[in-house]
């Protein structure tokens, strides 16, 4: 299927158009998570004691580990985008590959955490704290998975020789998306794991 007619043949404008599209999409994601953050605030104000006691039941070691994993993956994705800006497609693929791997590590750690929590009888329906915990980390986890899919697709595009220093829009956009997913986690960690 050939590329559909787009409004602009000027590649710079086409790039800006694509970026505006992604930023608009990220705005919708802010609202999506924002609704949950709002619910978190409402219930935290209402049940401070519950949040104090329940948050200690989370595994802060694994939570911190996951944070390191994601921040590192943001670094690798940024290096990947930088690589293709300089036309180094193979390097992009390597960095993106590592990023996908780190994403997988994140999800595995999450799996271990959740299993541990289920083992201790802590489920989404247990109380309002754990409803929030499972919903927010679950929704975030889905976004990590989707992000891994997008990054993998970019690797495929690069292997097909479609990316170069002249055109690397998919890399730029996927990198931005991955940074956003990382940023959401950086808010989740203190709110759920750290604040007493």
């Amino acid at each position, binding site marked *: 299927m050939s590329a*559909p*007619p787009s409004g602009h043949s000027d590649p710079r404008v086409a790039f800006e*158009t694509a970026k*505006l599209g992604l930023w608009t999409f990220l705005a919708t994601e802010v609202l999506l998570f924002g*609704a949950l953050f709002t619910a978190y605030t409402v*219930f935290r104000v209402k049940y401070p004691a519950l949040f104090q006691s329940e948050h200690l039941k989370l595994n802060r070691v694994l939570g911190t580990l996951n944070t390191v994993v994601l921040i590192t993956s943001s670094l690798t994705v940024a290096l990947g985008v930088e690589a293709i800006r300089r036309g180094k497609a193979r390097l992009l693929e390597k960095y993106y590959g590592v990023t996908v791997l780190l994403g997988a590590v994140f999800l595995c750690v999450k799996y271990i955490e959740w299993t541990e929590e289920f083992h201790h009888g802590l489920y989404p329906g247990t109380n309002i704290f754990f409803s929030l915990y499972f919903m927010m980390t679950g929704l975030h986890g889905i976004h990590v998975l989707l992000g891994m899919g997008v990054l993998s697709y970019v690797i495929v595009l690069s292997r097909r020789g479609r990316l170069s220093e002249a055109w690397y829009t998919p890399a730029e956009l996927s990198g931005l998306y991955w940074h956003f997913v990382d940023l959401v986690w950086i808010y989740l960690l203190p709110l759920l794991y750290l604040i007493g």
Partner: protein
Amino acid sequence: MAEEIRSGRGYLAERGWRSWAYTMDHKRIGVMYLYTTIAFFFVGGIFALLLRLELLSPQAMYFSNHTYNVFFTLHGAMMIFLFVIPAIPSGLGNFFIPLHIGARDVAFPRINLASYWVFVAGFLVVIGSLVSPMDTGWTFYTPYSAKTGAAVTTLSLGIFLIGMSSILTGLNFIVTIHKLRAPGMTWHRMPLFIWGMYATSIIQVVATPVVGVTFLLLAMERIFGVAFFDPAKGGDPVLFQHFFWFYSHPVVYVMILPAMGIISEVIPVFSRKPIFGYNAIAYSSLAIAFLGFLVWGHHMFTSAMSPLANAIFSFMTFFVAVPTAVKVFNWIATLYKGSITFEAPMLYALTFIFLFAVGGLTGPFLGALATDVQLHDTYFVVAHFHYTMMGGTVMGFFAGLHYWFPKMTGKMLNEKVARVAWALVFIGFNVAFFTMFIAGVRGMPRRYAEYLPKFHVENVISTIGAAILAAGIAVMFWNFLQGLRKGTPAPGNPWRALTLEWKTPPVPITENFHEIPVVTDWPYGYGKVEGPPA
């Protein structure tokens, strides 16, 4: 392109189902959305007629109360999510936004096609949920919606998908309007329909994710027992209402702003005068979009919010009325010293102003705290929102359909039949819905399958009105069918209008323009005008 021009069939030249299912032409996508949403208008309308049939009798007559309750839920949910919200933006908007701004297509044509198929997936899931239909009302308030045995979870998924379609459309339009305007088309040379669509798209993008989360949480409560809305676990059923209305109030502006955009196009054309107050109308769309996010609590004045919160929401609610009123004043001023003709598009545009004024002026009763406490959840509210959503948006939609029919199809409609349909619609609508104001003031609650005998007369009158309205709509759509089959061939610009879509052949080619136009003026230079406002 050559074949399209030669055959005169323009974008419709290529045939076969694949040329539609895989199309990336915004015009074809718009047409598909129009057919789909109009189909749901009919389905939702049949439910409405069944409701009005049952309401002829104070006691249950044709169906059980449970069946009635399912019918009003489906009427509301289908009309809102599957017709009123998508019809103008995804239907007419998709078709005409690129044409209006002098572009060949939207910014992301593939995402545009995806948005249609996500919409289809969504409504298929919604229809699937009908195996166990719900009676929660389109507002799905918890705890009832979390506890009831019907297929609420399935329906939640369907609405989530439809919401995604809405977000993709809004996102596409925002980027299109920012980036793809033809050379010379500054923001202040854009048609007012575009301003309206731009404001609409911002609302769609900001508000819809919240309703997505809302339905996700409802599904999670039903499946995993999460505690957000469950009082037994410390949750708050009213929190659902906050989340729900945070989207559902702005969404009424998603419904009305595109229709207002159409009115802003039609009035100048059929008055042969420039639009009065272009800047005011343009900025009022943005003001409405912004203020519309600050008033959701006015649906919840009796839901135990604090008196302070109630006061703030009431105050803000009155302010969103001001930019709306400003539009009405400007449209009427456009008529002053005009040269007015009353073809069907103009009849519907004037009808919009009239009926929307009724709807809008019954708003203060509901925005004012003391009277809202009396009238909330009564038929007064039902009348108010039908005057604004049907007397407003749907009339605007009809205006747009009649106005743009020649451009979409290359055929003209029968004007006489259109006027007969209009008369039936106008009379039927008022008879059907004005009586509901009275029933509401007298105390008749909404969502009542059975009612006390003292409300009998209003209900009978309302049903008669509904029948007349249905007849008018039937005549209108029969006219559309006749027009499609054997309408007289349309000229490229039958209304002598100045916006860019009318500069194309009677049926536009797929690429819209042979060459991208260079724009030097605003599109409202009717009559003796010395240039756009400063």
